[in-house]
């Protein structure tokens, strides 16, 4: 049984302009110890997917389809059951460690909280375990830091504390939503190394969310490119990097500044802008910005087309590129 199985997930939000589908036909599954990445730009649905996985969707959101954790259906869970699950079997790491931590409580108390709540440890045992966790996330002077408040720590140290809290109950699944976006690059690498090490040691599943393609390259086994509330392309990470085929993926990879580009190079851009969730078309959400659009693209959301083992893209016009590639090769 897969650790996590998401099938045809649809999330409908109530907006001022009527119901809007923030996610449609999102499907994926992952095994224990597997790492997957969700990538895309703001408004593409990656954070919405994370919120759905954690049962933290905005009020009034309607969920259809299915999300199963170890066979347990999550979409129909009552809030009290979610509370027993969050922080216990599903660990969460958010973008901004300063807002994820409570400024009034000591670090030790915040790490101990899930242990007391979910594992029923007494204060003494929870504190001892919190110390062990701080050592595990390689926070220097862990014993002294137990009694520190968040403002006494740097950004990278705070994010280590947030990770220690997420790991406290040895979750089966870790959801990390832009865990390093607020950090410097050198700290970013340390934090990503740490997450990778912990995932390998504990055998939990990792869902890593980022808008930075570079972050994904070495960190996840499979990559899901999201656009307009759906997964537009997915596959093994190396495969997606080498042979991305969806027109949106092509645009995204081309727009990225890379080291080694000559001074003054103009980057390729994608015309137009990300569609508003309330205005998502019935067909392919990328149709309005796509150079290859044909009327059929606007009729219905294209079904995933296989490009290789485990590599799919939702596009009707993949043949255009195959031809172009064949011509370029000839």
């Amino acid at each position: 049984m897969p650790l996590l199985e998401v099938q045809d997930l649809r999330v409908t939000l109530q907006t001022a302009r009527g119901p809007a589908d923030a996610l449609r036909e999102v499907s994926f599954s992952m095994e224990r110890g597997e790492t997957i990445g969700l990538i895309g730009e703001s408004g593409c649905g990656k954070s919405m997917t994370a919120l759905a996985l954690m049962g933290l969707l905005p009020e009034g959101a309607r969920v259809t389809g299915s999300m199963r954790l170890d066979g347990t259906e999550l979409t129909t869970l009552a809030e009290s059951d979610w509370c027993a699950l969050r922080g216990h079997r599903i660990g969460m790491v958010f973008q901004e460690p300063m807002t994820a931590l409570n400024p009034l409580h000591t670090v030790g108390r915040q790490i101990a909280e899930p242990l007391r709540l979910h594992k029923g440890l007494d204060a003494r045992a929870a504190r001892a375990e919190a110390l062990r966790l701080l050592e595990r996330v390689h926070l220097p002077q862990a014993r002294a830091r137990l009694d520190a408040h968040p403002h006494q720590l740097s950004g990278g140290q705070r994010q280590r504390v947030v990770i220690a809290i997420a790991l406290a109950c040895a979750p089966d699944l870790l959801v990390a939503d832009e865990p390093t976006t607020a950090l410097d690059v050198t700290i970013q690498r340390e934090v990503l190394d740490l997450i990778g090490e912990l995932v390998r040691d504990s055998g939990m599943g990792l869902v890593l969310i980022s808008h930075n393609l570079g972050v994904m390259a070495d960190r996840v086994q499979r990559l899901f490119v999201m656009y307009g509330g759906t997964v537009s392309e997915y596959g093994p990470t190396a495969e997606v990097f080498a042979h991305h085929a969806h027109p949106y993926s092509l645009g995204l990879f081309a727009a990225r500044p890379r080291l080694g580009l000559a001074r003054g190079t103009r980057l390729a851009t994608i015309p137009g802008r990300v569609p508003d969730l309330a205005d998502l078309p019935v067909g392919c959400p990328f149709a309005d910005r796509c150079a290859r659009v044909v009327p059929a693209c606007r009729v219905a959301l294209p079904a995933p087309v296989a490009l290789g083992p485990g590599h799919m893209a939702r596009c009707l016009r993949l043949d255009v590129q195959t031809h172009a590639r064949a011509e370029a090769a000839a």
Partner: protein
Amino acid sequence: MTLLAVEHLGKRYRLPRRNLFAAAPEVQALADVNFALQAGRSLGIVGESGSGKSTLARLVMALEVPSSGHVRLDGDDLHALDAAALRRARARLQMVFQDPYGSLDPRRTVLQTVAEPLAVLHGAGRAEQRERAAEVLDAVGLRPGDLGKYPHEFSGGQRQRIAIARALVTRPELIVADEPVSALDVSVQAQVLNLMQDLQERYGVTYLFISHDLAVVELVCDEVIVLQHGRVVEHGRPHEMFRRPQHAYTQRLLAAVPGR
């Protein structure tokens, strides 16, 4: 021609006293920074948070007074100018900030936002303000029809274009851009970087470009300085420096670039 010269620039900040009877501790945010920036060229400043990048930007913009050293614009020491002369000099310097959601006033129209520096620095009349605002809006790829709109009607990339239009309206020679694309999505970032380069070609603007993204700096800058703890540890052309970094800190920054 040297437009901006920074000589032995240093800045100390005083921290709160720990003890009533002890002297207040100080932190050296910037120490002995030197560089000369030619008109029409771009200088990148890289370093981690706390390395002094933003302090340098604030000193160059004459928003803070240096503890030592000088900032010279066309030979004039900015911090030695009297109030009236500094006001005139300010029209030649403009700044673009990181977050286009925070840097635009939500209650003011695009016209009010973009034309404000003209009214303040040049005392321009209404007709001239409107004309110049429409002109710079066109230069950054927005429509004159957008003048009456409010910031919430625009996307993040469009807002950053408005912020750039506001910076351009006084026809400044130097634009200090503090992480101008860090808050933007990849595809929008590409549009703004292309725009900044087009504007440089067209108007000969000089950029002091602060960024933590080495690939972006390599793309838009002729020279780069690496700051660590307020000191310049390496200075050179990005293309060569990023291939053969000499200083250990530069090597560390490069090694940390994800997905290389």
